[in-house]
């Protein structure tokens, strides 16, 4: 993982082409379920039988991670939580941890953000208040409690080591021909991209013009300077949502949360929703199983 700077905009054909860029064993940062998950790439990773991925939840993981874990693509997760939200616990995650198949590096939300902000600024660590007294500190050899060097009063404070993902992977509402992508108020995606060596983005629609030249759009843009490659994926977040475009498919997530409780149910789910062609998924309205 050497390249940091992407210069000329690079477009790939589809989510499958993005999945081909994610090597086995990569440290991949993913957003939470409510923040533009590149679900179509997740399915493509399952189909290409990716192995040994190390996932970073920024700051939590959900449906996409559970799918990858169940399909055997994941070696470890570093995250503050893995959950399907209202649809309950993440079943494949829970099973994999309880059976010892998955290593979890437990964190707490602001420590993930802090570790990424450290990389974003190019510093090796960043402090955070709180956390002291949590067993998380004992388990994390990469965190360190020090005396605040700016005071002579006793004042212990924890340092997060910089987190440096190999790959940032997410979905966006728009891309433009300059390679910029629009992420709206989901600024964690910007932080992930700033901190990662490579950033791959799927997008709903290509937009004409340069979004950075438009003062109204620009505040929600992630500049192409951070984007290694982008590819189209209409409804690419499904069954998760894209605000103003399609809502999270609660019925489908609830269905997943139920059937994936067993290995067999999960395999049937994969068969139905992942192994069948992507094109079918994208061209027809997403099915709901209530």
């Amino acid at each position, binding site marked *: 993982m050497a390249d940091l700077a992407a210069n000329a905009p690079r477009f790939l054909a589809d989510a499958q082409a993005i999945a081909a860029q994610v090597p086995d064993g990569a440290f991949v940062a993913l957003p*939470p379920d*409510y*923040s533009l998950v590149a679900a179509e790439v997740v399915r493509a990773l399952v189909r290409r039988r990716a192995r040994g991925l190390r996932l970073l939840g*920024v*700051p*939590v993981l959900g449906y996409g991670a559970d799918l990858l874990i169940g399909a055997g693509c994941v070696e470890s997760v570093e*995250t*503050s*939580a*893995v*959950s399907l*939200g*209202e*649809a309950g*616990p*993440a079943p494949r*995650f*829970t099973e994999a*941890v*309880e059976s010892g198949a998955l290593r*979890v590096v*437990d*964190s*707490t*939300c*602001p*420590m993930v*953000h802090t570790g990424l*902000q450290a990389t974003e600024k190019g510093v090796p660590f960043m402090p*955070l*208040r*709180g*956390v*002291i*007294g*949590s*067993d*998380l500190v004992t388990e994390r050899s990469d965190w360190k409690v020090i005396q605040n060097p700016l005071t002579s*009063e*006793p*004042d*212990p*404070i924890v340092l997060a080591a910089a987190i440096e993902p190999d790959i940032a992977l997410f979905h966006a509402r728009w891309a433009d021909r300059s390679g910029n992508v629009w992420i709206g*108020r*989901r*600024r*964690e*995606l*910007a*932080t992930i991209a700033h901190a990662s060596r490579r950033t791959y983005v799927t997008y709903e629609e290509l937009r004409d013009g340069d979004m950075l030249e438009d003062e109204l759009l620009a505040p929600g843009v992630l500049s192409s300077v951070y984007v290694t490659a982008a590819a189209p994926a209409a409804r690419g977040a499904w069954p998760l*949502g894209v*605000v103003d475009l399609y*809502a*999270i498919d*609660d019925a489908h997530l*609830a269905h997943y949360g139920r059937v994936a409780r067993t290995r067999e149910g999960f395999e049937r789910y994969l068969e139905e929703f992942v192994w069948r062609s992507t094109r079918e998924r994208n061209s027809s309205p997403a099915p709901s199983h209530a």
Partner: protein
Amino acid sequence: MAEYAREELLACTVARLIGEAAHVAVGAASPIPATACALLLAQGRPLRVSLLHKRAGNPFTEGSRELFDLAGQGRIDVFFLGAAQIDGRANVNLVRAGGRRFPGSFGSAFMYFAARRTILFREEHSPRVLVPKVDFVSAPGVSAAGVWRRGGPQALLTGMALFRWQAERTRFRLESAHPGHDSAEIRARTGFDYDLAEPLASTPTPSAGELALLRGPVAREIAGNYPEFARRVWGRVAPV
């Protein structure tokens, strides 16, 4: 007395616990705290409510980091924590116990320190949840002298009772039992030791006015962010 759902009693109790506050933040999967906040707003309180997982019209523009920064700045008055285990020192465990894995600590290890008050909330009231000592401390209820801490536990609300946190004694005190539950049952179902208020009060039930708000504007509001919950409690379907 009006008929009410247990969730409605709990939401009204949470609303009373919030009391005077400028800014309340509600984290993941917290429909009852969210309902309590919506009730206070429907009552016309000048409360600011930040729902971390609000799906549309999310209050944040800095992504999921902003809630934690807000708390770090001292701008969050009340936060909520649920947990798989809670002990008598107000420690919370969201990670693992007895071979079982839970979702994880979320922001607890920070928010419990940075918010001015934290209301612990867990519907299940059992020796499995309310333990003598948590198997894993996601976030401690009490910090050593010299450790920075802006706030800590205010109360623990379960499906059976309300406990107040006594900061000076670093222990809970049983404040009230919900209708249908009594002191002996609560003692039997609580794995940790706590102080008693004698005589034990009964948790106030929702008023007709509260119920009218809950079933009208509050239910509509909640259905948008917690569709499953709204359907279960009020038979409401999420707006598209």
